[in-house]
């Protein structure tokens, strides 16, 4: 029972992080391999700050700020020139950025596994004498990702800035002709991707260890969740993320973590066979 609760909670936490990655994708419409790299790099920055200042929260804040700066800087310097080129060009640049960040992290911070401190006690909470298998840090993490993901989903759907971002991502030409400064909107989208990545990195790393490739799978599963849920649906991003997160957590917990990638692929294939547009896709698939 305790195990089940643990796996479920951890599944929700990872699921919400996948959902956040899937949501962010809507802001830029670019399969952004660099997002995992930025998350990893900013988490290293957090470790260094925590180590030097002794304050967890200083590291937390610096990491988030670094995420914003890194995201915006990448967009302005190397992504913007690919804007009027075929979309694949931008994707290739993000792969380059990922390689760069991972190499740089190895040089600056070393390639060995580092443990990342948690903000609160990680000893399990108890009701009376019954252990819940859940720590205060787990609760903090769950609350933080829940609030962030819901805030993102709501902002995308209901605010003018969110609409501007979606319009720019879905149809840049119409957006520009309507007066939306698309280049600027995409910079904000990247800054947001950096911020969410940094938050995910700081929250996940206490339970996974940190190394230059440690964020890769999280972001791969994030994209997987986006496809499962339906690329144009915010509800789909959240549901797809949760579904995948919980499923993978059970698989990893009960069957062994070697199987998670296989199961993720299996789920993806099955969903795409039944609903090619994803579970919550609104636009019907055009058959040619």
């Amino acid at each position, binding site marked *: 029972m305790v195990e089940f609760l643990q796996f479920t909670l951890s599944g929700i936490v990872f699921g919400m992080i996948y959902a956040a990655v899937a949501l962010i994708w809507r802001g830029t419409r670019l399969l952004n391999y660099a997002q995992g790299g930025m998350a990893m790099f900013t988490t290293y920055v957090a470790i260094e700050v925590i180590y030097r200042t002794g304050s967890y929260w200083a590291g937390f804040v610096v990491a988030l700020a670094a995420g914003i700066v890194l995201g915006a800087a990448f967009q302005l310097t190397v992504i913007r020139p690919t804007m009027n080129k075929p979309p694949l060009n931008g994707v290739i640049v993000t792969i380059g950025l990922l390689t760069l960040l991972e190499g740089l992290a190895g040089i600056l911070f070393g390639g060995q596994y580092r443990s990342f401190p948690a903000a609160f006690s990680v000893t399990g909470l108890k009701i009376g004498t019954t252990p819940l298998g859940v720590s205060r840090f787990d609760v903090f993490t769950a609350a933080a990702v829940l609030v962030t993901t819901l805030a993102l989903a709501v902002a995308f759907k209901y605010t003018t800035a969110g609409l501007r971002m979606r319009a720019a991502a879905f149809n840049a*030409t119409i957006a520009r*002709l309507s*007066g939306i400064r698309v280049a600027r909107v995409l910079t904000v989208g990247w800054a947001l991707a950096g911020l969410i990545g940094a938050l995910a990195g700081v929250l996940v790393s206490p339970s996974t260890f940190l190394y230059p490739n440690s964020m890769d799978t999280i972001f791969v599963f994030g994209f997987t969740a986006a496809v499962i849920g339906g690329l144009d649906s915010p509800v789909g991003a959240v549901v797809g993320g949760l579904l995948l997160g919980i499923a993978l957590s059970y698989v990893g917990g009960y069957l062994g973590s070697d199987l998670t990638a296989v199961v993720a692929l299996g789920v993806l294939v099955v969903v795409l066979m039944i609903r090619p547009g994803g579970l919550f896709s609104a636009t019907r698939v055009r058959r040619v």
Partner: protein
Amino acid sequence: MSSAAEVAPAGADESSTLVLEGLVAGYGGVIALDGVSLSAGAAAITAVLGANGAGKTTLLRAVSGMIRPRRGRVLLGGADLAGRNPEQMVRAGIAHVPEGQGVIAELTVEENLRVGMMSWRGALRGPAVPARAGPARAANSRAERTAALDEAYERFKPLADRRRKLAATLSGGERQMLVIARALLARPRVLLLDEPSLGLAPRVMTQVMDLVVQLSRENGLTIVLVEQNARAALAIADHGVVLNLGRVVASADARTLAADVTLRHHYLGF
């Protein structure tokens, strides 16, 4: 070539007159527009006609800033706007409805319309365009936006019933209605329409053409209409310009053009 003053009815708003002078534009090594001059008057419809590849779409793209003209001037109310990007052009009062029923399919009808008001925020940079006659530019308040939306729904009633539906679910005629409604929400002086009748059923096409006439007569918009269907365009236009290989080969009163048999056979295909 007749001037804007002759084309536009008496009392037309001079600040809404669009004048192109020697516009040259192209893609890479290809010159698609080779020194085009024309004048489109306020409250009048100027039809731009010609065969495929004559430069009609390129002309609109150069005016709205989607491509940067290599030479020439784009004058709105006397202010030269050539070289501005689309975000600035729409703020200056030039709205472009590109070819192909350009709704944002993934957004709802209402969201598409709200996108139309995005140019209300943010100032126009560079040379000022003379203020237009009539009411001042909309204030940027929530109430103003709601009022503008209501006005759009009032005019385009079928859209009101579908405001929460995705634009992807609309019919061809409704889509065309939505893109025109969206362009109007930018409160333009000049409306550039690229093949608004393309792919529409004849009855729907007639409705769209009637709407274009209404926008010009009642709203006093300067309309530049690019059409493959020259007969239908000349039937509603005040003035016609015929392009061939990026140059103006004829420019005259719409009725005169429609009566010119040689021209029709050579360039207009009817």
